């Protein structure tokens, strides 16, 4: 029984989001930079045409930007997140089953529809009308094939943004045209191996003997082959999977020197992680704290520190987590010559997550702290804005904050940032 799975996504989503409120960006080259304004992570078609590559560092393309008037933006995740939420809300009018895969991609259950292509076209028009975001839709019996169809629809305007590959004849016709490296789940290394034995297109890979696929790669490669044959191996999740771990990491705007500055950043990341835990009703059992210097500057002294600790009892309490993070950070702090290092990045990872109610009781379990304090903390920060109340160890000047020199306003989430219309 072939169940049609659709994937809908937006080409250059961040650029599309920036264009909603700034029509002067239409038809001109636009790029959006990564965290900390490092490199290009989204490019408009015009920017791609100028030869600006994905991930290209900003400092290498300065001349191109100046010569062609490329408009440059820092990542505005607040805006992108809000627009993404709206796009998902529209999808939900078109299918009862939406699986969010990333900020700009969703798998949609398209079973039971008589006219899938018509439905997809209507949905696409509606997303554009209601949110201003152009999306393309690929439909197929498996997620990997759907990704393939979506990719083909994006690159070939003849499909008008919708490609239904439920018909195997269509797949037979199109898959020989898809390079094997473009397939979801095929990394650079696998591609090189496949190239070596003459498998260069999606069709070649589909027709590869399963036994050979397993021998060559892993179960993953075998699964990709099956998926290309139209056999779904990656389930359509009815229920979002339980989060097993989470991480909050950031690059610093100005490299961090000295323990206090580093620990300010770690406190802020830990605070954020604890908030996320409480939002999802989870506690964590393991915490890892890490920090390192800029690896792209081998001329400078290098150091990478990391420590993991068990959290006993499991917790989502900001004060307890920050205390644990401090133990980790102190243990990982360089024993000699710490003043020589400038740390570019710090992060906190939490693992062994469990719903609060499943938290195991330990033998000498101290009575858990009255949750009222954390409830109050979250309530204050929700009502009066993020970071109204912070721990002292987070610091006030926050020189480690990310560089966001070109960020557009948070058009949809801040009263002070509303777009202005001249009337």
């Amino acid at each position, binding site marked *: 029984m072939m169940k049609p799975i659709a994937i809908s996504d937006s080409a250059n989503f961040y650029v599309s989001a920036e264009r909603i409120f700034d029509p*002067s960006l239409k038809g001109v080259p636009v790029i959006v930079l990564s965290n900390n304004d490092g490199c290009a992570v989204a490019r408009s078609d015009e920017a791609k045409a100028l030869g600006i590559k994905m991930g290209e560092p900003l400092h290498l393309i300065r001349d191109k930007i100046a010569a062609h008037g490329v408009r440059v933006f820092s990542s505005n995740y607040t805006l992108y997140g809000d627009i993404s939420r709206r796009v998902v809300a529209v999808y939900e009018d078109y299918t009862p089953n939406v699986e969010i895969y990333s900020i700009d991609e969703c798998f949609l259950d398209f079973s039971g529809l008589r006219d899938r292509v018509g439905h997809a076209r209507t949905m696409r028009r509606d997303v554009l009308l209601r949110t201003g975001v152009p999306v393309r839709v690929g439909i197929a019996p498996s997620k990997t094939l759907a990704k393939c169809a979506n990719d083909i629809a994006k690159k070939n305007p003849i499909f008008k943004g919708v490609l239904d590959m439920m018909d195997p004849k269509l797949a037979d016709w199109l898959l020989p045209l898809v390079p094997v490296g473009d397939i979801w789940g095929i990394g650079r290394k696998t591609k090189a191996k496949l190239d070596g034995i003459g498998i260069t297109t999606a069709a070649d890979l589909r027709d590869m003997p399963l036994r050979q696929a397993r021998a060559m790669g892993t179960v993953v490669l075998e699964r990709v082959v099956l998926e290309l044959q139209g056999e779904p191996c990656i389930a359509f999740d009815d229920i979002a999977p339980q989060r097993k771990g989470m991480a909050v990491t950031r690059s610093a705007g100005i490299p961090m020197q000295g323990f206090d500055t580093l620990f300010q950043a770690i406190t802020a990341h830990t605070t954020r992680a604890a908030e996320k835990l409480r939002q999802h009703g989870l506690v964590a059992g393991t915490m890892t704290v890490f920090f390192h210097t800029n690896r792209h500057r081998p001329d400078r002294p290098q150091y990478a520190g990391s420590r993991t600790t068990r959290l006993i009892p499991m917790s989502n309490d900001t004060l307890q987590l920050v205390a644990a993070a401090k133990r980790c950070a102190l243990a990982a702090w360089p024993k000699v010559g710490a003043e020589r290092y400038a740390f570019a990045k710090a992060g906190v990872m939490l693992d062994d997550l469990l719903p609060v109610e499943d938290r195991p009781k330990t033998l000498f379990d101290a009575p858990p702290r009255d949750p009222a304090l954390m409830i109050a903390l979250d309530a204050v920060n929700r009502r009066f804005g993020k970071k109204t109340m912070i721990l002292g160890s987070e610091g006030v000047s926050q020189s480690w904050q990310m560089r966001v020199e070109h960020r557009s306003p948070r058009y949809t989430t801040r009263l002070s940032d509303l777009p202005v219309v001249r009337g």
Partner: protein
Amino acid sequence: MPVHLVEAPIISQGQTVPLLLTRASAGFPSPAGDDLEGEIDPISWVVRHPASTFWWRVEGDCLWDVGIRDGDIIAVDRAGKRRLGRAVLAVVEGSVTAKILCKRDGKYFLAPANSSGGFPEIELTEDSEIWGVIAGVVRRYDLE
């Protein structure tokens, strides 16, 4: 211009509690006690399609006659029906303007709504597009 007073929601321990529409009586229990309703939320009355409604701030008085003034915050629904006579946001030559959608002699226009004059009328060309339809307006007045 009438001013409608809206009671702020009452906050207790971070939770909003329903606005009590009856006065509490110390002696006999209020017969309306069982008929409490939710608080009044004029924003949800204005915003009919949350996914497609965006807030903008207005600069200028070209829509004065339809009750929109400089400094107002307007809700703009991208999914609103583009009908003649409606106030819309339109993209003209790369910038956004608020006007009334009109038609004359078979041509579409973006017209101001301000009888004092001085605001331009713009012909709607193929290059311009309607961004959305104005769904409502929010204004507040000084209190101190």
